[in-house]
């Protein structure tokens, strides 16, 4: 059997009902699916029946990690946790939560490529993995404690270098809106309750082993330096946000915030970020400051430094120090997270006494972060908070819950924008205390059902940005027109895809973007300027397919989709072009399994089609177009009634979107009427058995 680098060769399997622990040969069983989501979908397809429910003991919880994790390939610290999503409405379907941190690398160093968990323990347990010693241990002492304490206690036993993935009280209480977290600030959304249903509190890993790089070490060094040389800032933004001496372009909206005179003010002593010339690979970590991106310019004053996953030079989790948060609210004065996690607290509030970008906003973030990340509550890309705002201000909460319960909340505090309100709400969500908290913890679809609210109404509200099946949009038309919309129809949770948005939000002039799009997709018309959308075309369909396939590829390899694919670079001498072949280069050299970009894309296509097959099988219908790939009304709505495809509006046209779906299904090799993959397509991507199984159930078009 050929020996590969990258993979460790062993996939760990644990049955919590029987206590059995064993391994499978990764190469033999899962190589064709790489790892990560690919491995997750494969296990669910092979081993789980469609009738299985998320909390059944037979339900699988797969910590999927790929061959790149733990190597020096930039931005590889990704774990894809695949399971049925209990929030997915009306029927839980396959979904993946994504977490960064150190978990992926540490598991690889312990000698395992992924962990597949099944069964249910009789009483609370945690899984201990110390190199090749794997044990199921008693978790009575840490059950009922937050994620932070669970981590601390396991660390006491396994040592300070151990990495712990844990659920909080939310997951323990089977709150569907739960996360699994590791390394302080890294959360995988949506699977926490599945882990809780298995009585599994945490997985503690300590690994001292190694990952082989198959290729020549000198060549590997060159390749990594090359990869670093074409990277931008967070989300691969290719231009700085203010004019820099070396830069031809700039964009105030860019995440590349560094500039001379702008400092990490809370560092001791403060550090000037300086003009980060992209050729200076020793200064990549200064480019991004998401404290500023998410909090406004006040972010500089609270930044200690940047943090994030193993092997990543970008550092998208700002570490912020807010003494007033400690003084006023008793939370630790230092916190870190990014995006929805960083915004967790503030997103509940409509306003703050000192404005949307002031100190209270920051304090609300601190309070929210510390609680959500300890109780382990999921925000569902901030849909939790948007729903809350709407439900409160439209009087629905007052109408639906008892008077007594309503009075138990300090609503005046909430309306004023007092972060201490969060102490009343968040713990209750984690503990399912009261009607409001319980319903919020279900996920939007079930909330609407429980309270007899109309999902159709929810889909009309352009501020809610709810999409379908409990999940919101994630980078849809507002960023990328039809391409964004199609992407948002394809998953059973918010699509978590950044391939497209990394290109179009990077700040390059539209003409430069169009040139790059022409290289990649055959026509400059594949991208439009924001708010100046044009009708659908085949270039956009190709871009959509590329975005999806690459996202699955990254989630299976363990490469960060918030950076890759590298369509652009900050380098003028490259015409701002990135390198679309870099995944293939990294994969081939690390594993020794040579694949060119087209071949690797076929693997990605296999993985994504398997996700499609799973969705079809578990929904019990092939009518994807009609029943799954739906588009909410707000996408077609413009408050000023501007005509579609004129400048200044982001709404789209229903008919054009139908054409868009046609074109998309065509490039995917799927049946236009149903949106289901054809038998030929399944076979083409190596899923002949899947086609057979679906054929037997009449789920082929």
């Amino acid at each position, binding site marked *: 059997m050929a020996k590969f680098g990258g993979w460790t060769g062993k996939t760990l399997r644990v049955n919590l009902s029987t206590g059995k622990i064993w391994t499978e040969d990764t190469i033999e069983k899962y190589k064709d699916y790489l790892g990560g989501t690919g491995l997750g979908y494969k296990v669910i397809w092979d081993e789980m029946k469609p009738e299985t429910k998320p909390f059944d003991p037979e339900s699988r919880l797969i910590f999927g990690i790929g061959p790149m994790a733990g*190597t*020096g390939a930039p931005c590889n610290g990704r774990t894809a946790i695949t399971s049925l999503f209990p929030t997915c409405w009306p029927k839980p379907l396959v979904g993946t939560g994504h977490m960064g941190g150190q978990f992926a690398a540490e598991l690889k160093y312990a000698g395992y490529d992924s962990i597949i968990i099944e069964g249910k323990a009789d009483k609370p347990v945690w899984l201990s993995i110390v190199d090749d010693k794997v044990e199921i241990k008693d978790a009575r002492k840490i059950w009922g404690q937050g994620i932070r304490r669970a981590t601390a206690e396991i*660390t006491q036993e396994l040592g300070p270098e151990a990495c712990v993935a844990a659920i909080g009280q939310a997951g323990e209480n089977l709150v569907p809106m739960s996360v699994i977290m590791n*390394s302080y600030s890294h959360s995988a959304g949506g699977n926490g309750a599945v882990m809780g249903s298995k009585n599994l509190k945490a997985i503690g890993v300590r690994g001292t082993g190694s990952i082989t790089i198959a290729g020549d*070490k*000198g060549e*590997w*060094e060159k390749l990594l330096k090359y990869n670093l040389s074409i990277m931008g800032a967070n989300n691969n933004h290719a231009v700085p946000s203010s004019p820099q001496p070396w830069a031809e372009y700039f964009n105030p909206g860019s995440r590349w915030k560094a500039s001379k005179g702008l400092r990490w003010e809370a560092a001791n002593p403060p550090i000037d970020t300086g003009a980060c010339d992209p050729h200076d690979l020793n*200064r990549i970590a200064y480019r991004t400051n998401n404290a500023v991106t998410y909090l406004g310019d006040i972010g500089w004053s609270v930044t200690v430094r940047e943090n994030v996953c193993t092997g990543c030079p970008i550092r998208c989790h700002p570490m912020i120090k807010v003494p007033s948060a400690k003084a006023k609210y008793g939370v630790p004065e*230092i916190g870190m997270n990014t995006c929805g996690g960083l915004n967790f607290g503030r997103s509940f509030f409509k306003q703050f006494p000192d404005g949307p970008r002031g100190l209270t906003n920051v304090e609300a973030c601190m309070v929210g972060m510390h609680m959500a990340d300890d109780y382990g509550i999921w925000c569902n890309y901030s849909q939790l908070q948007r729903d809350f705002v709407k439900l409160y201000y439209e009087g629905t909460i007052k109408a639906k819950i008892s008077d007594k319960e309503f009075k138990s909340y300090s609503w005046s505090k909430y309306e004023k924008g007092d972060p201490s309100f969060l102490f009343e709400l968040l713990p209750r969500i984690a503990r399912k205390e009261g009607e409001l908290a319980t319903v919020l913890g279900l996920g939007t679809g079930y909330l609407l059902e429980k309270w007899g609210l109309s999902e159709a109404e929810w889909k009309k509200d352009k501020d809610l940005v709810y999409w379908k099946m409990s999940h919101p949009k994630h980078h849809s038309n507002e960023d990328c027109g039809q391409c964004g919309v199609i992407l948002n129809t394809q998953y059973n949770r918010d699509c978590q895809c950044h391939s497209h948005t990394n290109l179009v939000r990077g700040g390059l002039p539209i003409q430069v973007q169009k040139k790059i799009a022409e290289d990649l997709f055959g026509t400059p018309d594949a991208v439009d300027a924001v708010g100046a959308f044009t009708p659908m075309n085949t270039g956009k369909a190709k871009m959509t397919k590329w975005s999806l396939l690459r996202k699955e590829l990254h989630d299976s390899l363990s490469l960060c989709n918030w950076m890759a694919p590298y369509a652009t670079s900050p380098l003028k001498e490259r015409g701002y072009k990135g390198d679309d072949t870099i995944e293939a280069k990294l994969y081939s050299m690390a594993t020794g399994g040579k694949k060119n970009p087209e071949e690797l894309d076929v693997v990605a296509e296999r993985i994504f089609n398997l996700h499609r097959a799973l969705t079809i099988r578990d929904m019990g219908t092939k009518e994807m177009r009609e029943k799954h790939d739906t588009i909410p009304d707000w996408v077609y709505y413009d408050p000023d009634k501007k005509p579609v495809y004129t400048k200044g509006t982001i709404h789209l046209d229903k008919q054009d979107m139908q054409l868009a779906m046609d074109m998309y299904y065509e490039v995917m090799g799927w049946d236009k009427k149903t949106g289901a993959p054809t038998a030929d397509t399944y076979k083409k991507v190596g899923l002949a058995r899947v086609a057979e199984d679906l054929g037997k159930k009449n789920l082929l078009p």
Partner: protein
Amino acid sequence: MDNRDEKHEILERFLGSAELNHPFSRRQFLKISGVSIVGISALSPLFARGATKPLVIMEQAKGIVIADPTRCVACRRCELACTEFNDGKAKPSMARIKVARNMNFGPKGIYGQSGQGNWGNGLITQDLCKQCPHPVPCATACPNDAIVMKGPANARVVDEAKCIGCKMCQKACPWEMLSFDDDKNKATKCFLCDGKPKCVEACPADALAYVAWRDMTDKVPARMVPTAVVSPEKAASCNECHKK
């Protein structure tokens, strides 16, 4: 040249090298130079003292990697560069610059409650080999004289051919900087990548620098109490130089 002149020459050359880090004054040293000095590795004509004489590293290193903990962003690319680019495998447990062990809770771990690291105030101490001046603890402890001085940077380097995998060196270093490659059963340590340290090149936060050697042994707190044993032969040679 007779024995006595040879020794004078050795001493002159030694004393001439940068930053003498010796408790004795130059005058005292010359006074006791009548005593035999054995096996100074850098000066090859005098190697012919014979294999039975223990190795004593006298000369300073020429370069050293130093670190700024306030800039470290805990990405661990230094650890990865160290092992991937030198050994062809990603093995941070073997990295010759050490960050992960301090990353979560600081250098004293979770029991030390230093308030540092990702779970504290964010400060990350990067542990680096000090390329110790004489006496070099790991070299002194090695029963096989497998830790030698090697150009171009005069780094203290494990000679794999001589290493027997006893791990005595690990017990000798107060900063716990010796690594062990259990795939090869050999100790390994920072060798400054022959003058172009890969960790320095790899750091995206400008937190590491490769500079002219300076004595860091009195500037960085020890991590542990060394428990290595010095062989009688080496102890005897210490006596030869240092006894009054």
